[in-house]
């Protein structure tokens, strides 16, 4: 069942972590008019976190789910 599938649990964990990182108060740490490597710190943080999250989602979604109940005709990948 998807609720207990380890893949989904990893993704759910990612969700919670990301939720915390994208919000107050952690967010407020980066909300400064500061430049890092010539780029705004806030944007670096946000886009960097965003890219990292996507990457982690790709990795977390790697494994096949334990049960494969779907066997639809016309399944192309």
């Amino acid at each position, binding site marked *: *069942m*998807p*609720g207990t*599938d380890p*893949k*989904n649990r990893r*993704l*759910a964990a*990612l*969700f919670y972590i*990301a*939720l915390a990182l*994208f*919000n*107050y*108060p952690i*967010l*407020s740490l980066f*909300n*400064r*008019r*500061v*430049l890092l490597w*010539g*780029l*705004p*710190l*806030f*944007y670096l943080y*946000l*886009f960097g976190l*965003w*890219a990292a*999250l*996507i990457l982690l*989602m*790709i990795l977390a*979604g790697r494994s096949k789910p334990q*049960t494969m*109940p*779907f066997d*639809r005709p*016309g*399944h*192309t*990948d």
Partner: protein
Amino acid sequence: MLDTGPILAVSFGYVVLLFAIAYYGDRRAVQGRSIISNPYIYALSLAVYCTAWTYYGSVGRAARAGASFLPIYIGPTLMAALGGVVLRKIIRVSKIHRITSIADFIASRYGKSTLLGGVVTVIAVLGIIPYISLQLKAISISYLMLQPYPEISTPIPFTEVPVLRDTAFYVALLLTLFAVLFGTRHLEATERHEGLVAAIAFESLVKLIAFLAVGIYVTYGMHDGFRDLIARAHALPELRSLFVLPDRPGIYGSWCISIFIAMAAVIFLPRQFQIAVVENVNEDHLERAVWLFPLYLLAINLFVLPVAIGGLLHFPAGSVDADTFVLTLPMAGHQVSLTLLVYIGGMSAATGMVIVETIALSTMICNDLVMPVLLRLPFLRLVERGDLSGLLLAIRRGGIVAVLLLSYAYFRFIGEFYELVSIGMVSFAAVAQFAPAILGGIFWKGGNRLGALCGLLLGFTAWAYTLVFPSLVQTGLLSADLILEGPFGISLLRPYQLFGLTGFDHIAHSVFWSLLFNTGAYIGVSVLTRTSTIEHTQAVLFVDVFRYSEEVDESPPPWRGTARIPDLTSLLRRFLGKDRAESALAAYADKHRLAWEGELTADAGLVNHAEKLLAGVIGSASARVMVSSVVKEEPLGIREVMHILDETRQVISYSRELEKATAELKSANERLKELDRLKDEFISTVTHELRTPLTSVRALAEILHENPNLTEARQREFTAIIIKETDRLTRLITQVLDIQKIESGKADWQTTTVDMKELIDDSVNATRQLLEEKKIRLIRDLPEESPTVEGDRDRLVQVMINLISNAVKFCPSEAGEIAIALEPTPDRVAVSVTDNGVGISPEHQALIFEKFRQVKGEETGRPQGSGLGLSITRHIIEHHGGTIRVDSAPGRGATFTFTLPLSDPSA
């Protein structure tokens, strides 16, 4: 100056291209070679989430308020992580129950309620029309800006452009045409539109490419890269504020809330639900879409800040609306093709949204608003009309036209007052009201119809009061006092500071209160009110959907009752059209290997399938109404509904096994108890039997002892009795020991050759006294030759004596007669003892050979003896390999016959 000509040509050309792609997509779908059945197309189609708001409005928001344009995209990224659980469940439920819209989903979950469906539809329409008008505004403005190319002038207010010269109007008409052609060509039970999805995916690609193009141009063409732009912005204090969030109270609250409602919007916006759920071809596509879509969002936001800075740097402050930077910057740089590309990109963004949104809304309007009303209007008697598919299509198309016209009207009258992003956020706040009902619906079985209804109504009212109502002030329809002082001067009811809550921007404030009332009412009312059977059923089917869909192909039918197949068929024909109805039924028959040529009654499975087919076309609530009109349904009680569900079927069969085992245990217990009772009876009988002679012996012995003067005759009499009684005692005890030995197999048997005639004579002699006492006549019927058997002589004598003494007991005295007969057969000898007593009734015949069983003697009420005699007899006979039986009828005496194998069968 770009002539109207080229612009229009480009615009129309683009739309024609879309038509072509959509047409091709549909063609391929019909051929079975779908071009959209892959995860990349699915992910791209999800990007219909990005509209003109993203395309134009993000830059505008960035220029005005820094990084606060981002939460709208972070929300969906976060939601993607949960996509596996939430979205997959919604998709699975929708596939199984043929759900084709948000209104249908909510209506279906809460007991197929038409009222809920209607409420959701109204909320959706009212909430989305501003959003659609936003797109029309974007198209209009972009066109107006483009016209004086390369001059950039503040456009004349578009409200002054007569309608018939307004591009937006024509675009709206074109979009209506597109939506009608590719969204409502025929009634599809699954409501999938492959051509449409192909066109949408294409548009997502175009807008991404266009935006990246202009972004690259501004960053590397007009400047020297990111760092250059940032450095320049950094040099200007007023531009540094773009690097961060605006510095005002409640900014983090707004950020947070924006993320949340964006998370809700990415699934619950009608167009998102349509694309993500209804148009989904294969659940597995989710796996990749889950990160592809966030990647798209990241890409399309990369250059927002650079373009905003570029625009602010280039144009003198306030001269050009920041919402148009995306277009005006390439114009300022005299890049014709890029400008046109950007223009096309903007059109993609706007038209994609409009098309899908109107189709989704029209489906809801038809299935969940208009049809339920029409079906209930008695004078229309729609139930009896022949073919309603034409009517349905007409309503759908009418819905599309109505929505677009209303949106255009909104755009003309109200649209000028607001920046793009604000309008969009108001719509987001509206669809966020669906979140409690839907999320609660798939994770909590306790949510019921009344709760959902109250939640939705309260949430919607709060939303309207805190966002829509005060915005009318700006249009001049209402006085500003309402905002400043509250209605009737009640300051606690000020729309923007409800109950005194300050420090939030309007959107956040509204979302907070509306969701608070919504969720509170949903949970509170659900918990406090009763839930009907159908709501329970749906709740289980939705929340536990993965359990049921893995075991059975179609979920177990909650219908009970029968319908006539002709009725069902005509019902389906009415709504699906003749061809579709017939092919659908044939497919079902094929799959389930049924032949209903001669059948008249439809089983529950077929009824349910028919309902689902109808639900795909007219919505689940109406489908239920229609099907129930032809089904004679027995009322469902909770118990019966539960019986039908698979889970309980297993429980029932298991409990039947338990019942069987219990029954067996019970009967075994009964037998044990009976045996126990018999044993107790036996013990009491035996002890009584033992005691009686003992008592006499004792009494007599006492008398003898006390009275030495007794006459000799008397003395002899008494001692004789004592001897007799002790004999009896001994006999009894011997018998008990005997049977115990025989039954436990510890008896020793002495086998010799026994002469039967001798045997009988000996036993007669032994019982002579008994016979003489009761004056019983003895008849012997013995053959000439005496057969012999191998056996234990003493035991066999015991058998004969037992039978004879039994016969004596039951013979009447004076008139009794006993006959002993010996009959040889080729390999056995049969001995029978017949008496002329009262006989034994058939019930007793079966019992008398059992231990402790006795039949009452003729003269005494109380049984004599121990009840063990016949039992021992039978054991002995059976040990010798023989049989014993009794023939008797009440009043006709009894004959006991036993057989034994001969010593020498040939004799």
